[in-house]
């Protein structure tokens, strides 16, 4: 595990071709690791018949809504938790 709860992380802004479970709306956004779910096979390779190994750690990452959506109409305290695999996360 490269990251632990409370740590600041950023979702990689790189483009990606093919199957991917990291939503485009999060690319380049910074958040905080809220939970560590364990390690799971990588869906990006498994989708094409591979075994998905090595397994990727999966994190629940907490984002401030107003950071993700600059025009967010709700209160400043509203949040979004998205599960992101480790190879999509960078130190922030």
């Amino acid at each position, binding site marked *: 595990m490269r990251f632990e709860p409370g740590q600041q992380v950023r979702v990689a802004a790189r483009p990606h071709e093919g199957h991917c479970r990291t939503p485009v*709306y999060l690319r380049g956004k910074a958040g905080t690791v809220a939970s560590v779910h*364990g390690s799971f096979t990588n869906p990006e390779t498994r989708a094409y018949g591979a075994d998905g190994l090595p397994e990727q750690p*999966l994190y*629940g990452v907490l984002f401030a*809504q107003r950071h993700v959506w600059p025009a967010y109409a*709700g209160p400043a305290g*509203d949040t979004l*938790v998205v*599960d992101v695999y480790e190879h999509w996360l960078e130190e922030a």
Partner: protein
Amino acid sequence: MGHDHDHRHDHDHDHEPIRHDGEPQAAARVRALEELLVEKGVITRDAVRQGVDWLVSRSPGDGAKLVAHAWVDPAFKERLLTDARAAADELGLDAGPSPKVVAVENTDEVHNMVVCTLCSCYPRALLGPPPAWYKSLAYRSRAVSEPRAVLAEFGVELDPDVELRVLDSTADVRYLVVPRRPDDTEGLTADELAALVTRDSMIGVAQPRAAEPQPA
């Protein structure tokens, strides 16, 4: 059904036969995929039938039992929030084949609401098949970008002081919301409480039903 007589329409223009089988495009695509997978020996028809049987046999009643037990038993609630699969096992409930099931608790401070923006990930084993709106593009996009407006359309006006936390289940985790226990339900049994726990309240887009007023 075929027929070999000379077929006459009662109008005289030519057109392709009108088909009334009404199969949606997505269903036709799934059927074509299934044919190929069976032909190539990847899956069997029996496995598909068993999968469909399992899915339609699931219902929100199982999730409701978990929630009601959590409401009456704080120690069980802690176990549910720590490891939902193990807690389901305790009650003899099947949490399903998903790699991980996580229960999150709504409180006075935080209201959780679940979406899968990428497809339709959903704790099917505990809630049954997801509703059509959960799979719609409108819900999947608006639930993350304007969730309070979506909640208002479901009839939930959330206090601005409450943190609305949207969970986008993009990966291997399926989320089950434990809604807040309704007021004036102190005397109810777990079974009576379970009847108040709706599917939508476990997705986080609604509050549970209110209790019937108790006789004085």
